[in-house]
């Protein structure tokens, strides 16, 4: 159960924080079509986060902060930064549309490969979440890939910005993969294909990982996300 709870919590945190970063693009996308698409992706991930956090709480109730809220809300709104387990990739703040697409491509490609494996998880709830997620992530990855190619092979300016976006994301790629060489190879193959189509170079990773688990971007993100919930801990919404 410990292992299951941990997996669900980690996957849930990734989805929750990545969804937050997509929510920030609301009313700021380059076209209405992208407005709709980004909200859609944000919603899919938020949905995954809710199911995963609820599953984690059920598998190990001890990890849920003791507040008068549902499990999913207790986990989302009443944990501090050090208790979040998301990868740093999703918490990075700021960046332009090219950065967003670079991050989404990396995130969706990685998570799709992960969820494909979890579709056979022994826990039937997790397996069902994974099966549903695979469909969603396939769309997310394709949406991001199309933009990466378009920006890469668009104008000189968009090419440079797309290349910069990849460079900014790349230092946070290695830590997505423990020592699962197969997963990494699958990921690398997709990225190589997309970059080739977009006349883009795959960045050379050299930035070292930080010592700590999180970047300085997570704390302000949580301060915003949790502000209303924490101002009214006894409220029902």
């Amino acid at each position, binding site marked *: 159960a410990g292992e299951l709870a941990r997996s669900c919590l980690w996957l849930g945190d990734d989805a*929750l924080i990545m969804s937050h970063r997509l929510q920030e693009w609301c*009313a700021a996308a380059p076209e*209405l079509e992208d407005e709709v698409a980004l909200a859609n992706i944000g919603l899919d991930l938020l949905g995954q986060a809710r199911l995963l956090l609820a599953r984690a709480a059920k598998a190990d109730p001890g990890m849920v902060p003791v507040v008068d*809220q549902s499990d999913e809300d207790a986990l989302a709104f009443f944990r501090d930064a050090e208790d979040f387990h998301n990868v740093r990739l999703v918490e990075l703040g700021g960046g332009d549309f090219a950065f967003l697409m670079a991050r989404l491509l990396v995130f969706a490609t990685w998570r799709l490969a992960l969820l494909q494996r979890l579709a056979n998880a022994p826990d039937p709830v997790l397996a069902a979440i994974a099966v549903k997620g695979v469909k969603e992530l396939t769309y997310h990855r394709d949406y991001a890939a199309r933009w990466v190619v378009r920006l890469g092979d*668009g*104008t000189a300016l968009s090419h440079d910005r797309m290349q910069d976006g990849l460079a900014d994301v790349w230092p946070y790629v290695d830590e997505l993969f423990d020592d699962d060489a197969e997963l990494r190879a699958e990921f690398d193959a997709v990225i190589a294909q997309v970059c080739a189509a977009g006349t883009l170079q795959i960045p050379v990773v050299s930035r070292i990982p930080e010592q700590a688990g999180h970047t300085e971007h997570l704390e302000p993100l949580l301060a915003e996300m949790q502000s209303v919930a924490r101002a009214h801990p006894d*409220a*029902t*919404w």
Partner: protein
Amino acid sequence: MDLEQHFDATIARDQRIEPRDWMPEGYRKTMIRQVAQHAHSEIIGMQPEGDWITRAPSLRRKAVLLAKVQDEAGHGLYLYSAAETLGADRTDLTERLIEGRQKYSSIFNYPTLTFADVGVIGWLVDGAAICNQVPLCRSSYGPYARAMIRICKEESFHQRQGYELLMTMMSGTQAQRDMVQDATNRWWWPSLMMFGPPDAESANTAQSMAWKIKRHTNDELRQRFVDMSVPQAEKLGVTLPDPELKWNAERGHHDFGEIDWVHFKQVVSGNGPCNAIRVSRRRKAHEDGEWVREAAAAYAAKRKEAAA
């Protein structure tokens, strides 16, 4: 029968005008303006509520709100498409919006101060929008009427969600109840103004009614909204901020106080509390997206060339 007679006969038979049909220039212009303003309203309307997505206090409410704001973007899309069937150009319409040459519903020029505003916007603002829009499902212009059918369905879903949020908050803490009452106080009068100036002062109504692109007068719709909202407020347990509001058995309607039309005109003419910020955020999104749209166009052109 000449073109104009044919057009008039179609309208008279309550049949729809379609994009390829001949139509008077005045009708086309009026329709473009109406549809564009409606599209702009959906897009600008994303901002005041959208600001609360990242701060929504429960994951369920966050999902509901994000889905609602996404619907608004979708509505904007259908409506711009409907305007394009009349020969308008989406980019041109967007530029009119961000240069302040075309209007949007002035209700979105008020600030959203607490999470209760999200609920009250659903209840009152979407409620008023529905009163306005249900008759438009029978608009004489086909593409707009069809868009409105879909939009109204979603809007009434949003309205129920907003009201349900308020019901939940009213059964929560005292602070939550206070937030709901405060938000109600702030949004009630602006919601009444959404129906536009009184009939006596409404210039375009007669022609629009004749063309069947408007089916009821502003005052009729406003009365319907008031009559609908009073029992909802009671059930919710909030007071509507109008001491003159009371049932008039003789009329079979609620009487209500005088609307501050001077205030209304100020807001419509660009001087509301949030006009500047709403338009400037839309402008910034448009400008920030310029290089992306250019890249997409350049890429499409290359692909076309390669295929040729």
